[in-house]
């Protein structure tokens, strides 16, 4: 901080921020680059046993035998847990549900019964003295099955689709139809009717799910767990195993990626707790990479879309019908079709979201759940319609710009999408793009340019934060949230420093421990909005309290100044216009005879303000592809994405979030595909070698633009969240660019070269 600035002081408001809005390196960076950051499977405790999971080989049927006794005879094997000997857990489904699961479903229970629910579900846990022994013994487990026919094919079972009957957090049911989409379609000048499909996708964070369950002498459990929600796991373990919260602590300081896969408690946690309590022994259970394909995933989807525009190129009819897979026992719900009634002005809209129950694991939210899926299809169709109307696809989008949320019939809290179109298109060099496909070439390669709009909801949840200022002037702020790579540690430290006036280096933020105060799971891009707003509140309370205490000090160091006349900066309260009058926080505490000042605040969503508005982030994505005409190989050579995501608190981490999400979008467009063998009912490509994600050489120029938005409605910080918006619209921009390059419209993801031949 400059001397001038420190003398003048900085009013803590959004216009003149000390920390917020400045690119800030991660506070946890040094720990991550030196190997000091410890992940769930890295807490080594004495006398640790290892559990290795055996996965089922069939999708449906009944287990008739497992050679558990033979396996237990192997030296070094401590226990083989199967459905035959697993200790009883809670009886009711209700007890197995967590914060995220659908309200009325029956969550999967490992080792609960002989009957199977899906292929690769856990059927045994082999616990050994060493990892190697457990792995070896697990390889010798033989399971016999009485197989029954299964259904895993969404396309073949589409006739069995039904509307959702359940609900879950984060899901917004499709809005009621408006106007008459069908008759408007029939009489329109330009029409598109097409079906889009995408396969199931697997999150595959680099760190596999792992649980190190430490069994204390008193029977208390300390669980080092890979998760996006420590308190969700704690509540689940207590509910399933009938334990008291004081006896179960879940700790997760570092998470090697989540992307939604760790919103719900994962089955290795259940198995680790079961083994630890049964053996009265500390146990670590890690999933293999193959087993990372055996639980949550982005559901496979088929989407039927009908769009029509009138002779002026104005959108007149939208019909979007999505079919998604779910498991037999739970309805996984994500918001897929609503975006199609929201993105553009349209008087006649009909949106339907249906589910097909299959013999698969329950899907789970995966980065921008629902929006990534629905907007890929819708924005591809919009591109097709723009071409029908012989209108530039960007111009078409501008022309049909939505000035209000028509689904809710409410104004937007803020929406700088027009500026996103302007800035990104200019940066990309869109002007002069030929309308016709196969118009651009570079050497022997076909070049194509595509555009898409993206959207995500700006949500906020209840969250609690605790702040402790100690006599040495250091501030510790904490909440049981998570940092899955999003930069939570850093941004919360920045917010706390900003609003407390304590210098960054004297602030620490603690998370990832169920014993901390309440936080929702980290997901939905709501962490900054929820926990960050609570950090702001508690720090403002802290300031007020310090000011009050300073006013009572002998010698009146602030000379009777009012709260509005002082500045809180660098661990001091100063009279703004007379900074010689100042007192340090440490002096305030000492004068008050306090060794610490402790405050706790719960921040509720700004429900009243939000109720009257639609709250979303938006993006404009431009992509360039280069296609080898002979071989069909496709490279995404450039992406420019402009984001209107409210206030950007840490532009460095925010940019990284968007960069990473664009890589995800390219991956969705070009690579990711869970290949089901419907004969076996099983994912065939369950490894990093066969389930393709981009490597470094696949990723070329990516540029991120943040378009400023001032929004006092979404939350106290005006931030809309960064985790999801970056992926939305990328796959459609790429698909649209592939069409522009080749004239071939690929409507099924991923766009592999065989689909261009």
């Amino acid at each position, binding site marked *: 901080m400059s001397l001038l600035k420190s003398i003048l002081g900085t009013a803590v408001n959004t216009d003149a921020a000390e920390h917020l809005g400045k690119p800030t390196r*991660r506070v946890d960076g040094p720990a991550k680059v030196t190997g000091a950051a410890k992940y769930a499977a890295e807490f080594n405790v004495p006398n640790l046993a290892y559990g290795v999971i055996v996965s089922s080989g069939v999708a449906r049927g009944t287990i008739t035998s497992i050679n558990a006794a033979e396996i237990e005879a192997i030296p070094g094997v401590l226990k083989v847990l199967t459905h035959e000997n697993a200790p009883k857990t809670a009886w009711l489904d209700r007890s197995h549900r967590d914060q995220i699961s659908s309200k009325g479903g029956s969550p999967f229970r490992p080792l609960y019964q002989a009957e199977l629910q899906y292929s690769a579900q856990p059927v045994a846990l082999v616990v050994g003295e060493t990892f190697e022994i457990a792995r070896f013994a697990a390889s010798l487990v033989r399971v016999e099955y009485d197989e029954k026919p299964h259904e895993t094919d969404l396309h073949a079972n589409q006739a069995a689709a039904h509307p959702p009957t359940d609900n879950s957090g984060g899901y917004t049911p499709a809005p009621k139809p408006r106007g008459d989409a069908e008759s408007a379609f029939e009489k329109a000048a330009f029409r598109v009717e097409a079906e889009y499909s995408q396969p199931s996708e697997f999150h595959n964070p680099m760190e596999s799910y792992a649980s190190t369950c430490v069994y204390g002498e008193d029977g208390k459990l300390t669980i080092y767990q890979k998760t996006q929600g420590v308190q969700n796991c704690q509540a689940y373990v207590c509910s399933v195993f009938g334990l008291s919260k004081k006896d179960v602590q879940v700790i997760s300081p570092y998470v090697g990626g989540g992307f939604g896969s760790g919103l719900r408690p994962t089955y290795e946690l259940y198995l680790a707790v079961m083994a630890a309590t049964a053996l009265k022994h500390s146990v670590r259970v890690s999933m293999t990479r193959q087993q990372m394909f055996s639980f949550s995933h982005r559901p496979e989807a088929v989407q039927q879309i009908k769009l029509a525009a009138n002779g002026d190129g104005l959108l007149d009819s939208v019909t979007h019908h999505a079919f998604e897979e779910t498991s037999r026992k739970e309805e996984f719900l994500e918001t897929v079709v609503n975006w199609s009634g929201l993105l553009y002005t349209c008087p006649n809209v009909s949106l339907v979201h249906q589910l097909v129950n299959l013999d698969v694991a329950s899907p789970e939210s995966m980065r921008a759940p629902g929006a990534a899926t629905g907007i890929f299809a819708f924005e591809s169709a919009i591109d097709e319609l723009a071409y029908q109307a012989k209108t530039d696809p960007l111009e078409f989008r501008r022309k049909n710009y939505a000035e209000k949320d028509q689904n809710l019939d409410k104004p937007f809290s803020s929406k700088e999408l027009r500026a996103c179109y302007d800035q990104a298109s200019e940066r990309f060099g869109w002007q002069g793009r030929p309308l016709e496909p196969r118009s651009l070439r570079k050497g022997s390669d076909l070049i194509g340019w595509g555009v898409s709009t993206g959207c995500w909801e700006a949500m906020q949840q209840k969250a609690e934060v605790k702040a402790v200022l100690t006599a040495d002037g250091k501030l510790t702020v904490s909440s049981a949230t998570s940092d899955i790579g999003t930069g939570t540690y850093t941004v919360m430290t920045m917010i706390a420093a900003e609003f407390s006036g304590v210098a960054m280096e004297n602030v620490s933020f603690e998370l990832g421990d169920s014993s901390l105060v309440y936080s929702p799971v980290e997901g939905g891009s709501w962490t900054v909005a929820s926990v960050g707003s609570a950090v702001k509140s508690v720090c403002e309370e802290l300031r007020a309290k310090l000011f009050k205490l300073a006013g009572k000090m002998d010698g009146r160091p602030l000379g009777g100044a009012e709260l509005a006349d002082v500045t809180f900066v660098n661990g001091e309260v100063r009279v703004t216009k007379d900074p010689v009058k100042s007192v340090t926080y440490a002096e305030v505490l000492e004068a008050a005879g306090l060794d610490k000042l402790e405050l706790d605040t719960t921040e509720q969503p700004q429900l009243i303000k939000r109720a009257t508005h639609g709250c979303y982030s938006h993006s404009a994505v431009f992509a360039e592809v280069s296609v080898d005409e002979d071989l069909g190989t496709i490279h995404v050579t450039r992406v420019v994405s402009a984001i209107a995501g409210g206030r950007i608190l840490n532009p460095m981490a925010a940019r990284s979030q968007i960069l990473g999400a664009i890589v995800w979008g390219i991956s969705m467009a070009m690579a990711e595909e869970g290949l089901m063998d419907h004969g076996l009912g099983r994912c065939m490509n369950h490894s990093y*070698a066969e389930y393709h994600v981009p490597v*470094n*050489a696949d*990723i070329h120029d*990516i540029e991120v633009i943040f378009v400023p938005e001032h929004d006092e409605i979404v939350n106290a910080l005006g931030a809309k969240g960064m985790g999801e918006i970056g992926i939305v619209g990328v796959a459609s921009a790429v698909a649209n660019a592939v069409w522009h390059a080749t004239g071939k419209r690929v409507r099924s993801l991923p766009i592999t070269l065989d689909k261009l031949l």
Partner: protein
Amino acid sequence: MNLATANASPPATQFVTLTINGQQRHLEVAPWTTLLDLLREYLDLTGTKKGCDHGQCGACTVLLDSKRVNSCLVLAVAKDGSQVTTIEGLAAPGSELHPMQQAFVDCDAFQCGYCTPGQICSAVGMIREGHAETADDIRELMSGNLCRCGAYPNIVAAIEKAMDATRARLSV
């Protein structure tokens, strides 16, 4: 009883000497223990990560006799007498970060951090190989290290930034 399980018993351990991060270690290891598991489960050097255990992701990359290898594909007993450098040994304890580590922090070349030790060890090994000149070379030669967070552009920037300083350090 099944033939396989009837004969199943853990193999006898063997002695192996490895110099890990400059420290000579005399170790008693089962022949089926990988270098990766030895580091993580027996020596508490958990900076080296397990991402796939099949040599497909590069998270477990260490420098073995100065060459970058996937430690999940190396049996510890097969490397008697070798030198191993892990992420923990790249910079001397308590000293400044290695230029590559610092560049990763400065360029925000990671998010979750799980692939990061492997990326950094791989980058140092790649520079020693001497074939990386351009950003495209880096992209190609670093393609054995997956990053699911998608930090690739920043990883390339970090490596470019640290290339000269790392070369200078390697030539000492």
